[in-house]
């Protein structure tokens, strides 16, 4: 599993992250909250080693992340990020099978196991019959689900998700979070999810890490982190807090 010890990240002369510590437990979903520019995406990218840390250390299963090859990291950590359009007619199945790259030989073709994993991922993301569709012709929400399917198809034990619900309708937002949660519980995985939806975080996260100006502002279970004072100081908005009658979790309503 991933453990993050006091990492700092600088870009040029700017400090993006400062002394962030995070311990990812098996079977837990961590929601990463914070206003725009707080350093959420940078932290997520550092977690899979694609942004170098200036100080501190990230360890994967007890070994420093920087000692791993890209292929080894990709076997353990899958990421779901905002996608750019591609200029080529890539099909959904080609896109999802690309997630199996780290598991195959660099020269070879996909195995039956790869195809099975890809089809299963598509099925779980409600994308049956999408295999031959071309990526550029999908709607934003459909693309987002394909990107999730690719991450699931990797069978990695750690999922990193950057606003996975940004383009999704209500039903698919719930589906996305249910899916992430189910996967984390049943496979004993762990996930870090960046979101701006405090209510989704309250419902689906086991822990919440709140970032402000690149530093950890609050870290703990949702009930403890999502309080008036924290939300006011991090987001600078007034909110109403009560209990969601359906789930018993904390519910956040913005006062405009």
């Amino acid at each position, binding site marked *: 599993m991933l453990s993050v010890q006091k990492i700092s990240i600088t870009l040029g002369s700017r400090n993006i992250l400062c002394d962030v510590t995070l311990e990812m437990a098996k079977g837990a979903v961590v929601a990463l909250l914070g206003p725009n520019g707080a350093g959420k995406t940078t932290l997520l990218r550092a977690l899979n080693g*694609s942004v170098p840390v200036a100080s501190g250390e990230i360890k994967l299963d007890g070994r420093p992340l920087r000692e791993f090859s*890209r292929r080894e990291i990709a076997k353990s950590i899958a990421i779901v990020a905002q996608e750019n359009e591609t*200029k*080529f007619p890539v099909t959904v199945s080609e896109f999802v099978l690309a997630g199996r790259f780290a598991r195959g030989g660099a020269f070879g073709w996909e195995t039956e196991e790869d195809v099975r994993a890809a089809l299963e991922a598509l099925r779980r993301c409600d994308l049956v019959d999408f295999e031959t569709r071309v990526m550029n012709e999908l709607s934003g929400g459909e693309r987002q689900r394909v990107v999730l399917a690719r991450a699931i198809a990797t069978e990695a034990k750690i999922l990193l998700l950057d606003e996975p619900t940004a383009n999704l309708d209500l039903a698919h937002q719930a589906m996305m979070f249910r899916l992430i949660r189910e996967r984390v519980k049943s496979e004993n995985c762990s996930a870090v999810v960046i979101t701006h939806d405090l209510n989704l975080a309250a419902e689906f996260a086991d822990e919440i890490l709140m970032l402000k100006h690149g530093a950890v502002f609050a870290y703990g279970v949702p009930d403890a982190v999502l309080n008036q004072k924290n939300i006011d100081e991090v987001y600078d908005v007034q909110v109403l807090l009560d209990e969601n009658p359906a789930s018993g979790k904390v519910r956040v309503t913005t006062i405009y």
Partner: protein
Amino acid sequence: MALAAALGLGLALGSERLSIFELTEQQRAILFDIRMPRVFLGACVGASLAVAGASLQALLRNPLAEPYLLGVSNGAALGTMLAFVFFESLGFARPVLAFAGAGVATFTVYQMARSRAGMNIERLVLSGVIVTTFLSSVIVLLTSVLDAARLRGFTFWLLGDLSQATYQGFYLTLVASLIGTAVLTSQARALNLMMIGERDALDFGVEVGRVRLIVFALASALVGTAVAASGSVGYVGLIVPHLVRLAIGSDNRLVVPFSAVSGAIFVVLADTVSRTVIAPRELPVGAITALIGAPVFIYLLRRN
């Protein structure tokens, strides 16, 4: 099979009509010493350029990337010309300097097109145009040292010309195109991810820097050997991979080898046309490929 047919057609047709069964001594010489190396060289040049185009396109995530338009061909042309002017006695200097020139041009365009926001089509095409025109003017300056007879041959060669074909040039491009196609096909699965996005490729386990180096080096070698043998035959690397993708989709594990075969067919046919349309005179094959290629480029640019 189509390749064999194209090769046969290329061998059979020409300004001198040959019958299959009865050849005079002179016709035999035409077939084996002139036409055969030329047709075979055309096939290898076509394969090299198409494979270089297909893999550069995937690497740069841009279906408009093309050795000729990116200035790679002109880099190789300048290298060849330097060898021609200064090291004429050294046989190996031409392909070696062509490779070096192609490599430097590729790297320069890549660095120019890169910005912090990433690389977009406009920047890439513009960088290619700038490098191409710059190299063209250096080439023109260098031509001033050539005498009139060499100048005409050189101008033809610049436009892409297979008439100087030798078996030696053929063997070199054959080896380059076979190795290049094989190695680039082996990187095709990584290229599939690069084609989606460089960050995606990194995230899903591709050693991006290594793949980039392999593709740049091999594309430069392919273009370098092709240009050293036959000048800048333009647009092959654009049209051929595009048609291949239309036919079989965008999986590079198929696109790269199919581009090799289709590129070979395309150049052999284009060269057959260039030898026969105004026979007994002939056109440079590059003029034929550009006549077909430029409209295709405009079409692709508009569709983007």
